[in-house]
């Protein structure tokens, strides 16, 4: 009970605690900037940044330790909406958002911007269809809702299965990202970096469960948003776009379109493996096929957003239904701060490289001058950038400048000639983004297995102590498995992330939505919907990925466009062919739809 009392006092002092923390982080940043002036090397600063932030997260994780079931699973349902919004934003914005989004926009142009719309618009669905009702339900996990609403262990098990596949796909990508960043900052091999990253992740989540993860995610959000905005503001100020470039970079975008027309967007004469040259126009969709690809990608990502359990379970932690709704608004606001900055960052970085009137330009300059630039040398040395004079004219052409999309955010401070302390900050931000998402995902998987599979299905007699020990053993075991898979480097960061959204959308979207919005939906229908949707999506993914062919240009990034309709049809048809749910279940749905009254499931269950 002692920890509960501490928790309550902590909740009352949140503003002061995180205010001091933010000031402390800024002071640390200033200190690093000063010691850089005194000649401390770039490597040391990078290491200090990483270790300092990790030490803070670990401290929060330790202070949040608990042996209570509701604190472990839903942070004691005492997280105010503002802080839950920040925690959700950190939970949500993965290494891919932080590191790869701006690079994707840089190279992908209009078709890629479907991710930006999809990963923000999904929250409208979360708020309109899911979050307040699931909060009222009072479940610990997403399969807990499916299992109680539809009844029966098979429905619960199907939900656990889809959750594990989707979240595990996602978490390997995040552990991969932590490994990449740790390896570079600490100069250790990638395979070691992966395990180092996992250690940091477990420090946040193992002792305190959801409570520990919540309060570290708030701290991680603060680090990642500072790390994203500071370089952008700095660079924009130097380029004369003011300190808030977001509303004024339209001219930069127009200028890029003009330069692209001048240079011509041609593929490279000879490709360099793993690297890209710019071939897609900055913003113009070229054909109606582009529009089709845009909306299908956006739909797949939005439905995935509204079905991914590590996001939905964040809304179980607020004190009330109203706070749950409010915190969806805060979540999207905090996410928006990064998402509307990414296109600005991509545009300004691209302009710096392309515009021959700027000192930082590389395109149109002499090849030997460009090769002599410090940042070009650094990134070329690790094989992430390459300048090859394929036309032999001694000038860098647009299609002779090769780059890995992932490095746009990481290399921007160096391209713009900012001091190294900024690069250290960006690395800490990337680490925070990847760690916070990995924490949420690992916890979602371990909680579903410990609560739904172990406690609800295998051993309903287990006491609290035993349940929480099982939960922790699973957390460590799954983390280790994910790290082992990540060290094999099977997929790129982005591919795996989009797959997770599609798995979740195919299998869980309609069973969750219809569970609240259609009283007639019954157990048989839900099971059919989960199985048919998941199978259809997976088979399509396998077919399109191995054969390289597509139906209606639906590639492997948007396979839930196949899985979701199959899930919907199967669920509706099977529900209508079987008897309607009993009166008790229908009353339960009615009860879910109003904010007042007791939650469906008891406070602790």
């Amino acid at each position: 009970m002692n920890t509960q009392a501490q928790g309550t006092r902590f909740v009352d002092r949140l503003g002061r605690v995180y205010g001091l923390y933010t000031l402390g982080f800024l002071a640390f940043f200033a200190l690093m900037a000063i010691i850089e002036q005194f000649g401390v090397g770039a490597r040391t600063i990078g290491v200090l940044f990483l270790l300092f932030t990790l030490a803070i997260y670990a401290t929060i994780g330790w202070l949040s330790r608990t042996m209570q079931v509701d604190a472990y699973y839903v942070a004691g349902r005492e997280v105010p909406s503002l802080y839950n919004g920040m925690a959700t934003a950190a939970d949500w914005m993965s290494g891919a958002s932080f590191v790869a989004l701006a690079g994707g926009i840089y190279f992908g142009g209009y078709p890629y911007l479907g991710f930006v719309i999809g990963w923000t618009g999904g929250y409208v669905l979360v708020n309109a269809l899911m979050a307040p009702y699931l909060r009222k339900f009072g479940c610990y996990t997403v399969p807990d809702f499916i299992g109680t609403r539809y009844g029966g262990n098979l429905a619960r098990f199907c939900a656990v299965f889809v959750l594990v596949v989707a979240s595990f796909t996602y978490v390997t990508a995040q552990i991969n990202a932590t490994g990449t960043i740790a390896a570079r900052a600490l100069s250790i091999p990638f395979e070691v970096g992966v395990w180092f990253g996992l250690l940091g992740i477990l420090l946040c989540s193992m002792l305190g469960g959801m409570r520990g993860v919540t309060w570290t995610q708030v701290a991680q959000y603060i680090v990642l948003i500072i790390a994203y905005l500071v370089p952008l503001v700095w660079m924009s100020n130097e380029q004369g776009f003011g300190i808030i470039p977001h509303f004024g970079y339209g001219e930069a975008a127009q200028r890029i379109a003009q330069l692209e027309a001048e240079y011509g967007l041609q593929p490279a004469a000879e490709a360099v493996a793993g690297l890209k040259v710019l071939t897609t126009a900055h913003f113009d969709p070229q054909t109606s096929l582009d529009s089709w690809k845009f909306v299908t990608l956006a739909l797949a990502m939005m439905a995935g957003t509204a079905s991914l359990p590590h996001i939905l379970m964040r809304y179980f932690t607020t004190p009330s239904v109203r706070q749950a709704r409010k915190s969806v608004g805060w979540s999207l606001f905090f996410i928006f701060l990064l998402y509307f900055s990414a296109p600005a960052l991509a545009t300004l970085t691209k302009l710096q490289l392309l515009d021959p009137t700027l000192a930082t330009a590389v395109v149109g300059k002499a090849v030997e001058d460009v090769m002599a630039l410090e940042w070009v040398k650094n990134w070329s040395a690790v094989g992430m950038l390459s300048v090859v004079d394929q036309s032999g004219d001694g000038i860098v052409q647009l299609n002779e400048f090769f780059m890995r999309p992932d490095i746009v955010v990481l290399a921007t401070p160096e391209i713009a000639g900012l001091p190294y302390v900024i690069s250290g900050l960006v690395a800490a931000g990337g680490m925070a983004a990847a760690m916070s998402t990995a924490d949420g995902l690992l916890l979602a998987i371990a909680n579903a297995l410990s609560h739904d599979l172990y406690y609800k299905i295998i051993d309903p007699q287990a006491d609290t102590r035993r349940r929480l020990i099982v939960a922790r053993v699973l957390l460590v075991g799954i983390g280790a498995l994910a790290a082992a898979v990540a060290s094999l480097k099977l997929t790129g960061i982005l591919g795996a992330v989009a797959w997770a959204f599609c798995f979740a959308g195919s299998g869980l979207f309609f069973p969750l939505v219809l569970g609240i919005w259609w009283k007639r939906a019954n157990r048989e229908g839900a099971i059919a919907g989960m199985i048919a949707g998941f199978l259809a999506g997976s088979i399509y993914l396998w077919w399109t990925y191995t054969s390289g062919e597509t139906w209606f240009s639906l590639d492997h990034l948007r396979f839930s466009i196949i899985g979701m309709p199959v899930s919907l049809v199967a669920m509706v048809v099977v529900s209508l062919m079987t008897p309607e749910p009993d009166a008790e279940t229908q009353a339960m749905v009615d009860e879910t739809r109003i904010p007042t009254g007791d939650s469906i499931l008891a406070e602790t269950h």
Partner: protein
Amino acid sequence: MAEVSSETRQAHWRKTSTLTYVILALWFLFGYVVPWFAKELDAASFLGFPLGYYFIVQGSLIIFVLLIVVQNIFQDNIDEEHGVAEE
């Protein structure tokens, strides 16, 4: 606490549903219709941006945030009106 009557529940849910459908219609407009016609909209410009591009990188995102805020304000009113709002 007093039991909520089934008439109240029905009226509350009818209003809640209508609100949700309106919000989702606007969500569809700014999430799908506007991006689909980005090229056509690019002929116009806003704040120095081509209009279609502006919506995709900023305008629609702002509208999404507002849709959630507006829905929550209306939903709070609906809940209070039917006496099912939390304290």
